[in-house]
């Protein structure tokens, strides 16, 4: 992360010998700052300088990887409009080791099923948090084993009891679970276990001051694979803590807080819990542990996550080429829409639901919605006429009828004139397509 050429230069040997391939140390520093070349090209750089540069150039929030592809942290901004948020909040659903094995398996299977398809995207819950509530390390180890055997999702093993973690973690270490909690009373043993098994571990303390002390002590053990839990369980406090941790890491480059943060909800009613979790999705939680485990609760939350973590610079787009839905034939209707993925998939879903094999032609509008494109002059009749021509759809169907979105009914005359196709104005909302398509094919 952004060290200037001069900051790098200060750490170089200043021999100006040219062995690095650039004539002077300063030129070499400038090249490094621009992301060209590697520090190792200089044979004389001292170890101290190497460490200093490495830590100064480290990202403000460490990236922590665990489980099945879960990545926490590595964020660089406070507001998504400043660039983007990179690593969507990892969502874990909790299970208790007090369930018997049969119930545990049933619950794990239910969590496995928390996967969704909408608007061309697939999203799901990322992991399962196994809570030790039995007070019995053997039971915890057994429960963890059962969960691990029945899921591909990432795992979090959560207990305040070192013995329970010691009993459970080694058998599933290959799945690289996240461990917790290392707290004031037990952190040495828990961090030692994490270090031995090379697993990331949650450091938990009550409030930021205590957390700061704990991180520094834990770091002194020579380990840095940490996730932070500031201990708050009240929404307004958690919001404050999440914000402070993110601000200190990014604005102050405050190293002890340069780790991802996990949030725990306080509400027990699932609807309230999801509303609470939405606060943490928007404001900086790298991971959230939830109790709610039904689809109707999770889809809204995961949709919010997908939205907040969309790159503001690039709307998601589909190929602006002719798409077909179902087993198309010469009678198939032809719909035109835009290449904004949200628009395209809203239409595709409904066309599919009409059960009438159809063609859909998304016009290249730089990934904007129908009305946005229209307002910006990117959905002009000339352009649509050209796209129809170039798509070759005329050779595939035996008619010349094209259906346009209801919101742009005004272009129908002009489009008809430019393209030679008969223009049929469809419904405004895609939800009207099914009944529209049926009436069309019956009429």
């Amino acid at each position: 992360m952004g060290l200037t050429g001069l900051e790098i230069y200060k750490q170089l040997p200043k021999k100006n010998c040219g062995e690095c391939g650039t004539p002077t140390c300063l030129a070499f520093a400038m090249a490094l700052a621009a992301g060209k070349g590697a520090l190792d090209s200089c044979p004389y750089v001292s170890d101290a300088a190497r460490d200093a540069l490495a830590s100064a150039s480290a990202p403000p929030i460490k990236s922590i990887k665990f489980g099945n592809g879960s990545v926490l942290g590595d964020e660089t901004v406070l507001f998504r409009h400043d660039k983007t948020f990179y690593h969507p909040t990892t969502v874990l659903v909790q299970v208790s080791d007090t369930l018997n094995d049969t119930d545990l398996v049933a619950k794990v299977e239910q969590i496995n099923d928390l996967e969704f398809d909408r608007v061309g995207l697939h999203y799901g819950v990322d992991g399962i948090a196994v809570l030790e509530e039995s007070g019995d390390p053997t039971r915890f180890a057994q429960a963890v084993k059962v969960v691990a055997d029945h899921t591909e999702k990432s795992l979090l093993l959560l207990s305040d009891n070192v013995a329970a973690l010691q009993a459970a973690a080694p058998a599933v270490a290959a799945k690289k679970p996240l461990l917790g909690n290392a707290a004031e009373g037990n952190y040495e043993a828990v961090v030692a276990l994490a270090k031995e098994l090379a697993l990331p571990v949650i450091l938990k303390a009550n409030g930021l001051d205590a957390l700061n002390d704990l991180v520094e002590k834990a770091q002194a053990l020579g380990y840095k694979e940490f996730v932070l839990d500031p201990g708050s369980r009240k929404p307004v406090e958690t919001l404050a803590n999440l914000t402070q941790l993110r601000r200190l890491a990014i604005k102050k480059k405050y190293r002890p807080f340069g780790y991802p943060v996990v949030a725990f909800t306080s509400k027990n009613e699932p609807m309230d819990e999801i509303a609470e979790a939405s606060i943490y999705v928007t404001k900086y939680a790298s991971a959230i542990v939830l109790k709610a485990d039904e689809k109707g609760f999770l889809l809204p939350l995961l949709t919010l996550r997908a939205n907040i973590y969309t790159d503001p610079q690039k709307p998601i787009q589909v190929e602006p080429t002719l798409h077909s839905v179902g087993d198309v034939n010469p009678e198939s209707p032809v719909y035109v829409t835009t290449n904004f993925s949200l628009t395209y998939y809203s239409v595709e879903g409904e066309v599919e639901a009409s059960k009438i094999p159809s063609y859909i032609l998304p016009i290249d509008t730089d990934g904007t919605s129908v009305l946005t494109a229209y307002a910006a002059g990117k959905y002009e009749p000339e352009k649509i006429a050209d796209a129809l021509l170039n798509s070759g759809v005329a050779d595939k169907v035996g008619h010349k009828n094209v259906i346009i979105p209801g919101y742009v009914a005004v272009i129908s005359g002009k489009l008809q004139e430019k393209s030679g196709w008969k223009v049929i104005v469809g419904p405004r909302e895609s939800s009207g397509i099914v009944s529209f398509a049926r009436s069309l094919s019956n009429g």
Partner: protein
Amino acid sequence: MPVTLVKERFPSKVGEVILGATSEQGGTRTSTVVVGGDNLLPFLHFEGKVVNRPVIAMEVTDIVPPWNEAIKAQFGDVLDNPAAWAQKCVNEFGADLIYLKLIGADPEGFNRSPEDCARVVKEVLAAVGVPLVVVGCENAEKDNEVLAAVAEAGAGENLLLGLAEQDNYKSITAAAMVHKHNVIARSPLDINICKQLNILINEMGLPLNRIVIDPMIGGLGFGIEYAYSIMERARLGALANDKMLSMPMICTVGYEANRSKEANASAEEFPGWGDLAQRGVLWETLTATALLQAGASILLMRNPEAVKLVQRNIADLVDAEVGA
């Protein structure tokens, strides 16, 4: 070791707007609502004061609305009676304001006359003591007539009237000035248009503390992220003392959230999406709670169950007993 917190000290704050007027103030409301006034990013009590909590205006329409059954059923038999409906919103569901939409005025629909619309407004004013937000049918020409009549009928009540847009703000602004109301200034998710419109309205003579910004939103899953970021930027602008961005923001949460398929499709149709009773309510709820985090002051909501959840979410967040 104590950590030194990062507390922003903003040079300014979000402007305050007062809605409604009691009898001492020339109206007939039993209470008024004040929005805005905060000098902090949403709910960060450690760096300022949440002066006025965000409020919820519940949607009432002048004709029976085409909403889904799960929402309509919660209102019982009042949907053809705006006054009784508004009462229910206030008495049973705890609405802070009533958001009256005069969609019956639509020339392509019932084409109700401006006088009829004004009468509905009077009935609702008589039925409840909370302040009113009143908007037309989104047909620019008709709305100009309707809102002029409404402004006159509600003179003294300090209404919030909408919508003023870039190409149609003059007549509503004039009506608000003559009869001392406030206006909603709507811009299509664009900071510059938003500022420009506020300037234009202000230049006509309406004071800045009589304008509320409608930044336009997309619902959850349908472009909410654009609204979220525009609103965060507007809030930061207000705090940095940009007077033309300093108005409180209003969001059409119920309308946008409930347009989506996810808020309406049954579990039979989409087994993969789970139970509609949960999903539909949460679709509106999360549209609201996410935008609260971006700085919304007035939420225009529809589903009573979602309203309940958002009321509790707001209560949790304005609880200032604790900080970081």
